[in-house]
């Protein structure tokens, strides 16, 4: 299974390196969302600084949608999905591989968007390790859930409008938890619910969806 996962992840990432879609389109899209927030909100009254964690994660979520769609489009040509299915690769490995490729792209994106937020929204980071932990577990969950729903919607013509409708409500708790954890990383204060609790919730989400993928990706591919 691990070998298949590395194989698939490597393939997806190599395709990305060659086509640079994430680099040239998804990344700029994410930054654009940050800029649009500045237009929509008032940059002078400190709203952006206070809302920065939430705005960051919303931008990540929208960009994740694009990254997942891209991950599906890579195999969108006729017959390629069937070929993958018949190739004898372990479905759990395929799932891990695709999710890992999406996760890597998202992590790079988060670094870029994080820099964007620090620069554009005048943000000061106090607890960097909390941020890193939040980013890692949130990304794992996003990539896993995204790959699962992606597989569900893969062959459908309405995939482009259906996938956001399916995925966004499910990752809402990730948005809530990641934002709260990031908030305490930026302000350094702890609230009644500690950052540790939020990180725990993010980890639970990631574990649940990764486990689901390992168990159920095979049947999902059969359509």
């Amino acid at each position, binding site marked *: 299974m691990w070998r298949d996962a590395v194989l698939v992840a490597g393939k997806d990432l190599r395709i990305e390196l060659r086509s640079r879609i994430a680099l040239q389109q998804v990344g700029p899209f994410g930054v654009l969302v940050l800029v649009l927030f500045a237009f929509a909100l008032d940059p002078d009254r400190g709203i952006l600084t206070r809302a920065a964690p939430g705005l960051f994660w919303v931008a990540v979520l929208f960009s994740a949608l694009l990254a997942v769609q891209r991950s599906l489009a890579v195999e969108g040509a006729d017959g390629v999905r069937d070929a993958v299915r018949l190739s004898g690769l372990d479905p759990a490995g395929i799932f891990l591989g695709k999710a890992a490729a999406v996760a890597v792209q998202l992590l790079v994106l988060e670094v870029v968007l994080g820099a964007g937020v620090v620069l554009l929204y005048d943000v000061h980071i106090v607890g960097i390790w909390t941020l890193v932990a939040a980013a890692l577990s949130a990304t794992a969950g996003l990539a896993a859930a995204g790959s699962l729903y992606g597989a569900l919607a893969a062959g459908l013509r309405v995939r482009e409008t259906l996938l956001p409708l399916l995925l*966004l409500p499910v990752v809402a708790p990730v948005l809530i938890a990641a934002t709260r954890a990031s908030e305490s990383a930026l302000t350094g204060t702890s609230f009644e619910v500690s950052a540790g609790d939020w990180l725990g919730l993010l980890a639970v989400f990631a574990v649940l969806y990764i486990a689901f993928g390992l168990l159920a990706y095979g049947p999902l591919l059969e359509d």
Partner: protein
Amino acid sequence: MSLGIAALVTLAATCVLGLTLPKTVEQAEYSRMIAIHPGIAWTAYVASSVTALASILWLWPRTRHERWDLLAGSSAELATLFTALMLITGSIWGRPTWGVWWVWDARLTLSALMLALLLGYDALRRVPAEPDVRARRSAMAALLALVVVPVNHFAVTWWRTLHQGRSLDLTPKDSLDGSFLAAMTLGFLAMTLVYAWLLVHRVRVARLEDARDDLALEAAIDERRREAIPVAGA
């Protein structure tokens, strides 16, 4: 059909009883929502649970049967209806207490998320597909949504306890006397009967639709065959 009559009668009785409840000090006439809102909320949860359970029964190879898929899909549609009504009636009920149409308290927010999940499931089911494919796809989607429900619960309740110490309890204090409780209980019964009746008929419609699709498919295949025969003879 006696189920339909029972549903109709209890629903009408609930409305009459509910609308004639006395006004309360805290909520004036808004406390009359107690007759319908809790019953609707309860039914929404039941309907969602039925969908989840039926999906699991379909996915489990030993219990797989077409009837579970039809049940899951039908109940989901009803769950969407009742969840939407829950949000509407809840919003109306809370207006005098909150002063606004919507507050982001834990229960309302969780219900709104539930509605979003249900709408996604309904949309997925509407994608044209063979019954087997549709069944598996829908059941997977139902499970994926089921898995997130407990996570949602913690995320939203933790989030909202930071900002609102008191949980918004809609029942006015001086109202737990007989008539209010009676109205609420009747409402539970009425909504459950209504759901049951609607479910029976929705499943029937689903079966008829699948049967019609099968016939249409067979007709198309027959026509294709008839076209092919002269060519084979030539």
